[in-house]
């Protein structure tokens, strides 16, 4: 069995591709190149930080003006719409203005096209619409209100899935994008969950003892204030979440694991039964570390 392990900085984090098969070095390297290129393609489309990305075009687009969507966007937006609907709007990527206000996301380039105010840091985030103000029809997206989307809460998982989909049968593969990961052969695989104990004066990082994978994919999210801010916004009130727990979700796909960790952060304490139903409907399992 030949093995190849590669790691590249992509999607704003470190993306690892691990392959094992009875194939030559050349064949494994060729497959890994295709997988990294697939992830790069998604990064180029969905990066909030790249002013040339399709996402930036969507965010700059005026209301009632259609934007054509690629197949990747159509597929991902369909998943987001399901998560948004199933959670009564708790899963909502249109919280970008709040993350910009919190300085988690950059503000450059959005002053003129989307918001006519004096500056993004002074903007009134209530002026922006939500996911329900988007219309998806005939491969086109139309904004009914000014709004901006950040796909940082789900695009990594989607990219992991798309890379894994390129792996032919018989090859064992794992793609790990900064902790959002998926195996082709997940039975008997193990994973550790990293957690930061913020209740102590110094933020201690700890890692759980290894646990078996309970599904092909796992993703982990936390909403503790680390480096001065939280990265999780409650779309109902626009507030940054502040929670000492770490939420990990095992799911059949990494895009679902990634998205469901955000819902776990938002619903765990306020609507546990609702969260339980959503997780069950997606065949997902939640692990909370505190």
């Amino acid at each position, binding site marked *: 069995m030949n093995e190849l392990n590669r790691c590249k900085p992509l999607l704003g984090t470190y993306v690892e591709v691990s392959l094992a098969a009875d194939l030559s070095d050349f064949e494994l390297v060729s497959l890994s190149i295709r997988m990294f290129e697939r992830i790069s393609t998604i990064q180029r489309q969905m990066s909030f930080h790249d002013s040339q990305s399709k996402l930036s075009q969507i965010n700059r687009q005026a209301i009632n003006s259609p934007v054509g969507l690629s197949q990747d966007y159509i597929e991902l937006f369909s998943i987001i719409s399901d998560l948004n609907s199933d959670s009564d709007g708790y899963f909502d990527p249109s919280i970008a203005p709040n993350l910009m206000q919190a300085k988690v996301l950059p503000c450059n380039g959005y002053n003129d096209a989307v918001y006519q105010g004096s500056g993004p840091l002074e903007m009134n985030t209530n002026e922006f619409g939500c996911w329900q103000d988007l219309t998806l029809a005939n491969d086109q997206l139309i904004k009914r209100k000014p709004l901006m989307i950040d796909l940082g809460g789900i695009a990594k998982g989607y990219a992991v899935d798309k890379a894994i989909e390129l792996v032919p049968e018989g090859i064992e593969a794992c793609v790990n994008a900064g902790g959002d990961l998926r195996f082709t052969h997940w039975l008997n695989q193990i994973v550790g969950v990293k957690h930061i104990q913020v209740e102590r004066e110094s933020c201690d990082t700890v*890692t759980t003892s290894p646990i078996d994978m309970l599904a092909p994919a796992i993703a982990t999210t936390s909403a503790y204030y680390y480096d001065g801010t939280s990265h999780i916004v409650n779309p109902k009130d626009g507030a940054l979440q502040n929670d000492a727990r770490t939420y990990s979700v095992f799911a059949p796909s990494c895009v679902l694991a990634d998205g469901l960790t955000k819902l776990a952060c938002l619903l765990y304490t306020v609507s546990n039964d609702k969260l339980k139903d959503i997780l069950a409907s997606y065949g997902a399992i939640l692990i909370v570390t505190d």
Partner: protein
Amino acid sequence: MKTKNNNQTNTSRRLAIKRIFAGSAAITAGQFFPMSQSWGKTFLSLEQAQAILLPEENLYARTIDLSDTQRKQIAKESKVRVRSNSLRAWVSDKGNWFILDQILGKHENIDMAVAINQNGGVIGLEVLTYRESYGHEIRHPKWRAQFHGRTASERLKLDRDIKNISGATLSCAHVTDGVNRLLKTWELVLSQAT
């Protein structure tokens, strides 16, 4: 002799007691003040990275020493601190460069390889080794699996090495800084070294 024997006995007792305390201290430390652990992964070897980034090119090793003036200029223009005054680099017969570099981030320590073409553009980048301090391991964690009747304790596998860690996403911003520093190094030094 008696005194000596007593001394020997006392010495033996002291050593024995010292060993007991040393053992107790070690166990106590393990239980209540666990040592911080680092977690690391090795990806490509140097030769593999060279073959992937600059395939079928003959490479010639170069040790590049940076003068204080060059270091300051690179730091000023890339806005990234230059920690080392030497660079491990290879130049190909086509004029492309392969550079081995180390990134010291806030949480991570990375060996990376960057290939730069003869026009100063990035051909590719590979992380060769990745080390991260991830703190101590929770052996009796307050964690729990939800909903499917499972408990986390059922899933503990203490005797197996963790190859993959799932955690809140770690930014790769330091690698971006490192690439910017190397591109400026190429512009100011390597482009004139061939």
